[in-house]
């Protein structure tokens, strides 16, 4: 024991002094509301500000419900996927292939339906196709270790190519009366003409919030995105979690693909084109960290509403349509800068 004491006394302890200076906040209390939800509050404020600007610039348009109903019918097409994509981005990955998955899963839908399958079976076939396409992405990323940004460009071409080949480049009308029940459930109009797809956004937001915050799977999504090595050392199955998040995006892309197709009563072979950037922008504007390990479903919901409001609002507000993209880019860049600033503040 004597040896222990003597040599310990000679041990330099430079490290702990630096550590002590780092620690400032009173940590006996839970972190303040601002520390915990600062980002979400900021995003909410940006959303409210944009809405106010629209309201002031074109009160005639923005005081009537019709603009909101139009907005509620188009925004879900990408917002449903954005909610699921939040999981992928929290794990530190990205998926660029979901527009092609939307179309590919519609191929399964039309095949099963045309070959006398029940409507429910056709619906399931689409969801399963989407989930399998996602699992394929997840396997390539999680098991083979190929960077997601590269491999999902590859699978995007693959899925789109398979879809175009299967459909010989032509579309498929969704006007058969037998499809009406599904059409009502997906894109029907509810009280006061609220589009069903918007109700689905709300339902999915609640379910996915629970999945992210109240299940082991959700816990592992955060841990892997934060520090995959630590998670692995503590027995978290990194590969299956990654397969899981990509499957989720695939299945939700299939759902969104059906929503988008039934909304126009036609399956266009180009289905999904144009949704890529809106969806990704919704997740990042919503405050999900591009470095992984942090993000929220609430943030993505608000982010998606901001992106959707800009799409619907810029022209209605009387701004020259040529300015649409510039305003769009401005809002995205400003919100990303704001996030970095807020995060730095919160950390210090």
């Amino acid at each position, binding site marked *: *024991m004597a*040896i*222990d004491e003597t*040599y*310990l*006394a000679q*041990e330099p*302890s430079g*490290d*702990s002094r630096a*550590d*002590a200076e*780092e*620690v400032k*906040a*009173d*940590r*006996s*209390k*839970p*972190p303040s509301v601002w520390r*915990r939800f600062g980002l979400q509050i900021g995003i909410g404020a940006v959303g409210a500000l944009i809405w106010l600007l629209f309201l002031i610039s074109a009160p005639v348009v923005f005081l009537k419900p019709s603009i909101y109903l139009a907005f509620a019918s188009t925004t879900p097409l990408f917002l449903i996927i954005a909610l699921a994509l939040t999981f992928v981005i929290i794990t530190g990955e990205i998926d660029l292939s979901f527009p092609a998955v939307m179309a590919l899963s519609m191929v399964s839908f039309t095949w099963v339906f045309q070959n006398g399958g029940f409507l429910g079976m056709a619906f399931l076939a689409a969801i399963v196709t989407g989930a399998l396409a996602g699992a394929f992405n997840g396997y390539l990323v999680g098991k083979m270790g190929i960077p997601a940004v590269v491999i999902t460009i590859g699978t995007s071409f693959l899925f789109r190519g398979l879809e175009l080949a299967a459909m010989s480049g032509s579309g498929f009308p969704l006007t058969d009366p037998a499809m009406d029940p599904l059409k009502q459930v997906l894109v029907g109009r509810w009280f006061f003409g609220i589009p069903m797809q918007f109700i689905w956004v709300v339902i999915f937001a609640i379910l996915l919030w*629970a999945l992210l*915050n*109240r*299940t*082991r799977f*959700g*816990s592992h999504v*955060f*841990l892997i995105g*934060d*520090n995959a*090595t*630590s*998670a*692995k*050392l*503590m*027995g*978290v*199955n990194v590969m299956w979690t990654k397969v899981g998040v990509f499957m989720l995006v695939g299945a939700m892309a299939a759902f969104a693909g059906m929503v988008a197709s039934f909304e126009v009563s036609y399956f266009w072979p180009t289905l999904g084109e144009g949704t890529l950037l809106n969806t990704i922008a919704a997740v990042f504007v919503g405050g999900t960290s591009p470095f992984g*390990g*942090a993000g929220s479903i609430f943030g993505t919901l608000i982010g998606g509403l901001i992106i959707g409001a800009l799409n619907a609002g810029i022209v209605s507000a009387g701004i020259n349509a040529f300015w649409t993209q510039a305003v769009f880019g401005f809002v995205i860049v400003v919100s990303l800068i704001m996030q970095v600033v807020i995060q730095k503040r919160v*950390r210090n």
Partner: protein
Amino acid sequence: MSDTAVVTPVIELKNVSKTFGEVQSIKDIDFHINAGEIVGLLGDNGAGKSTLIKTIMGFHTPDPGGEIYFKGELLKDWNVHKARDIGIETVYQERALCDQQSIWRNMFMGRERRGKLGLLDVAGMRKEAARLMSEHMGFTSNAVHPENTVMTMSGGEKQGVAIARALYFHAEVVILDEPTMGLSLSETKKTLNFIRSIKEAGKSAIFIDHNIFHVYPVVDRIIILDRGSIAASLVKDEIPIENLMEGLQHLARTGSWSA
């Protein structure tokens, strides 16, 4: 010594090797640890200490032919999750924490508690984390609220979280990989006391450190690893620390052990 010979070791390794590509990191390791025993693992950088414990933990799969036994039972399809399930916990050199996440998430990483409907028992985990930190850690005078992120903690406090985590799951065997690295004087003493308390509780520990003055006072046996093989296996009471030091220096110079 005669009765320890018939006792089944808690962990036993037979002929375990691990090769990464062309490099054989550990070769033909035979190793055991009994209940209530603390084994010190000494060796230079690159001797294979970390590879050995990560193999025991199931993070690395041993090369074919190597066998790991837990209480006499051969382990098959070994992985980290199973290792933790049967009661082996490790305090890793790199702490294995996720900085942006809350303390309770880190404490229950990989073994999250679930309640009704299989949903996470968040309130329960928060409460347990708070209790552990005030009862076991003792690294800080103030209690730290479990909702704070690990990012806000000092090196010693982070180590406290890693140790409290190993403790919480009532491990049979606690493996500590350089637990005193980067700790202050008082934090080091606390860590060494913690290792002694493992023995008092009848549990086992494997203690890896560079500093033999940290290892020597708390261990029962010392295993010396050199270039992937066991160079010497010693009972502490049979070798004075001066001889041990000379032996290690000789090993570093010549590559062979003689005490």
